[in-house]
């Protein structure tokens, strides 16, 4: 059930392990399942609102502005723009990436919603808003319906995007 710490095999008990555990079955729903199945095929799938025309990735299945179901599937580019970022220098429990590393909001070309991605193959002091990046995927036989299929994003060499092109997504 739990393991306790004592001051030796016969010493007084000083500590009690009290783990809290929750087991649950998660379903992301139909719309996000589409996004995840797209990842399994090595592509980013979003959905467009029929009223305002905005493209959401990942889509929640409806437009938060217009309140209508989003039914049109849109495949997005493999590249996009860093809108904002954070350089992580602080170690924490469960950390799986060597610090320092860059966590950025990436606005894929054709999308109207950014999402978080890991940025690699660039020194942390060279990261900047507007930088153009591309997704680097795992090997085809390693693709799964999970964001783990995207290893990271890296600079793709294109000139930085104009601030006006992403300012409304900050």
């Amino acid at each position, binding site marked *: 059930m*739990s393991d306790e710490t004592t001051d030796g095999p016969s010493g007084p008990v000083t500590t009690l392990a009290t783990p*809290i555990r929750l087991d649950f079955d998660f379903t992301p729903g*139909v719309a996000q399942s589409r996004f995840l199945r797209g990842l399994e095929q090595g592509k980013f799938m979003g959905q467009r609102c029929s009223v305002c025309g905005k493209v959401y990735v990942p889509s929640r299945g409806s437009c938060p502005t217009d309140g209508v179901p989003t039914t049109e599937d849109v495949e997005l580019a493999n590249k996009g723009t860093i809108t904002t970022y954070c350089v992580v220098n602080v170690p924490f429990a469960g950390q799986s990436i060597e610090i320092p590393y860059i966590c950025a909001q990436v606005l894929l070309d054709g999308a109207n919603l950014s999402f978080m991605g890991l940025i690699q193959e660039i020194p942390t002091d060279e990261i900047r808003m507007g930088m153009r990046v591309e997704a680097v995927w795992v090997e085809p036989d390693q693709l799964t319906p999970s964001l783990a299929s995207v290893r990271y994003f890296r600079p793709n060499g294109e000139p930085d995007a104009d601030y006006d092109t992403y300012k409304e997504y900050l």
Partner: protein
Amino acid sequence: MPESEALHASHHLEYPYSRSVGPVIGAFLTGLRDGKLFGVRSPGGSVIVPPTEYDPTTGEDTGEMVEVGPGGAVESWAWVSDPRPKHPLSRPFAWALIRLDGADTALLHVVDSGGPDALATGDRVTVRFRPAAERIGAMADIESFVPEAATGGSAR
């Protein structure tokens, strides 16, 4: 895409907390590990089981540890006919408030009586510890309480 094609995945979330137990609960847990039951004497003279660091009525510091049990009486109980995965026993059992001999308060634990017909308020029960090698200083060191009749009479 049909709705049935929504993905599913098993997740688990766990926080591996551990806590310092302090001198009084620590002494109680040490007793469990050693196969003994302890309460603590309050300033008013009553014996509180499981022990607390402070008198629940006056807030004063409690005093010496007092060995209690191993027998006691069932004060109230609820039958669990369909145990859940994390329950202490996989077979039907009772959660019971047990006033141990020498104690003035009741301890919540398990009574393994076989069936609800074999248990009544006021019945005598006695502790059944796990084997010494399995005891770690936790409530689960007590496997259950069992009716004294099943042990061939009073364990006192």
